[in-house]
């Protein structure tokens, strides 16, 4: 409202990604009402469409939905892993939030990514270079952000590994010799290495043992509290969403079907699909 209206960090408007050849009916004939994201006329696939939201500094936003609902697509578009079909995104610390970052040159996108964003993927292989040591991976991110002093880089890398409870003695080992939970923690260290104001977390605990999952979640919560990083947490797991987020967006067939405070989504879901999701929670 009045006081906080313009306080956003990331503003996303009508973000859309379509694979194949859409025609003028594609968007009108897909989505939750049709229970499908495939255009019946052209077979184009609508991965996500008309996604709009504001993320505030230090806020944690959850994106939930079943496999194929478009959750990961949203963050991958914002992290420039994929090209959008339509829509815009503005990031306050970049050009005072006036430029649509999705339409910047590749060079500028790299700058934004290296200085203002971090990403943690479900699969550590997507976020880490397995041919480099764990310290080398962190160094890579720091070098890309313009840090050239070897001493400083090693110092920062060991500080991060310590923070994420990866034994510093193993800084020069390759992540391939680490356990899944440890690889994930190295990936988190790398993602936050240059203190980005914005972090994307894509199903980061999926596939880990429950106790390892718990440690990774605790780490994320701690980082959020201590560093005040704004985060977008993509997960199909409502317990992860409940534990980490303030606000939640529910996606189905590439569209937002509901958004609200996380406790409201969990205790008073409005949309049929959100009700189904919540009632499926163990």
């Amino acid at each position, binding site marked *: *409202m009045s006081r906080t209206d313009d306080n956003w960090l990331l503003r996303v408007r009508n973000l859309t990604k379509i694979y194949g050849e859409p025609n003028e009916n594609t968007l009108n004939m897909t989505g939750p009402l049709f229970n499908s994201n495939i255009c019946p006329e052209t077979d184009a696939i609508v991965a996500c469409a008309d996604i709009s939201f504001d993320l*505030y500094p230090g*806020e944690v936003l959850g994106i939930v939905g079943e496999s194929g609902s478009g959750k990961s697509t949203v963050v991958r578009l914002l992290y420039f892993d994929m090209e959008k079909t339509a829509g815009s995104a503005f990031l306050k610390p970049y050009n005072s939030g006036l430029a649509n970052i999705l339409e910047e040159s590749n060079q500028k996108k790299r700058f934004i990514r290296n200085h203002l964003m971090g990403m943690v993927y479900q699969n550590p292989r997507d976020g880490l270079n397995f041919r480099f040591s764990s310290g080398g991976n962190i160094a890579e991110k720091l070098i890309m952000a313009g840090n050239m002093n070897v001493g400083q880089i090693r110092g920062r890398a060991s500080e991060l590994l310590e923070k994420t409870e990866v034994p510093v003695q193993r800084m020069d080992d390759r992540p391939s010799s680490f356990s899944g939970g440890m690889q994930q923690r190295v990936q988190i260290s790398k993602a936050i290495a240059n203190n980005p104001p914005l972090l994307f977390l894509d199903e980061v605990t999926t596939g880990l043992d429950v106790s390892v999952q718990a440690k990774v979640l605790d780490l994320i*919560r701690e980082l959020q509290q201590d560093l005040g990083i704004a985060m977008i947490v993509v997960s199909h797991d409502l317990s992860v969403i409940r534990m980490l987020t303030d*606000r939640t967006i529910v996606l189905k067939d590439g569209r937002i079907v509901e958004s609200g405070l996380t*406790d409201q989504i969990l*205790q*008073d879901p409005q949309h049929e699909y959100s009700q189904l999701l919540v009632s499926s929670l163990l």
Partner: protein
Amino acid sequence: MNILEVNDLSKIFNLHILKNKKIEALKEISFTMKEGEIIGLTGKSGSGKSSLMKCIYRTYLASSGEIIYASQDGSIDMVKADDHRIIELRKTEINYCSQFLSVIPRVSAVDVVCENLFRIEKNKTRAREQAKEMLEQLGLPSDLWDAFPVTFSGGEQQRINVARAIIAGPRFLLIDEPTASLDARTKDIVIDMIVDLKRNGTSVLCISHDEYTLDRLVDRRIELQTGRITAVEMDGVEV
């Protein structure tokens, strides 16, 4: 000044997955609350007390009506306000203490209590000291302070819950059955703590079934029955 004005509030749950079954939880609820007042919400289980409280806190979305809250930055309708504004109010003014403790796993009792305090007291050691003092007053054994509350008994959890809700001195407190599973002595301590809050200007909406708590704590009562207000006490008279 009124801190809260509820006008013609209703709440209907529409359960899509049960063939659109509709449950009417609240009907035509209207009342006002003065700043610094403690109001007791009474009524049988299922009469809508907790639903009303959750609508005010926005955990439930009201179906119609208004909930005007006089925030420090001006009046705001909690039914329609932007999510970010609500998050802000929850961090700075309004606190909700549910009937049962729900906490993030693997956080120690002391840190659970400090959750809201850490926002205003940046020195974590000092915040923890303050939390320990409060837990001491509430008679929670000191060897539990660093343990995880998930495994605590009902009464122990309740004390953590109450301590967390009141330690940072919220401006408006919604509290659900604060004394339900406590012994007589601890009950008195909790009541005294809430009365202390009131002295410092906090307005409190309190659900309770306990006559003793209501007698000692509240300025007046509002009674609910099947989702409607059936009795409102004003200046000691039922109207």
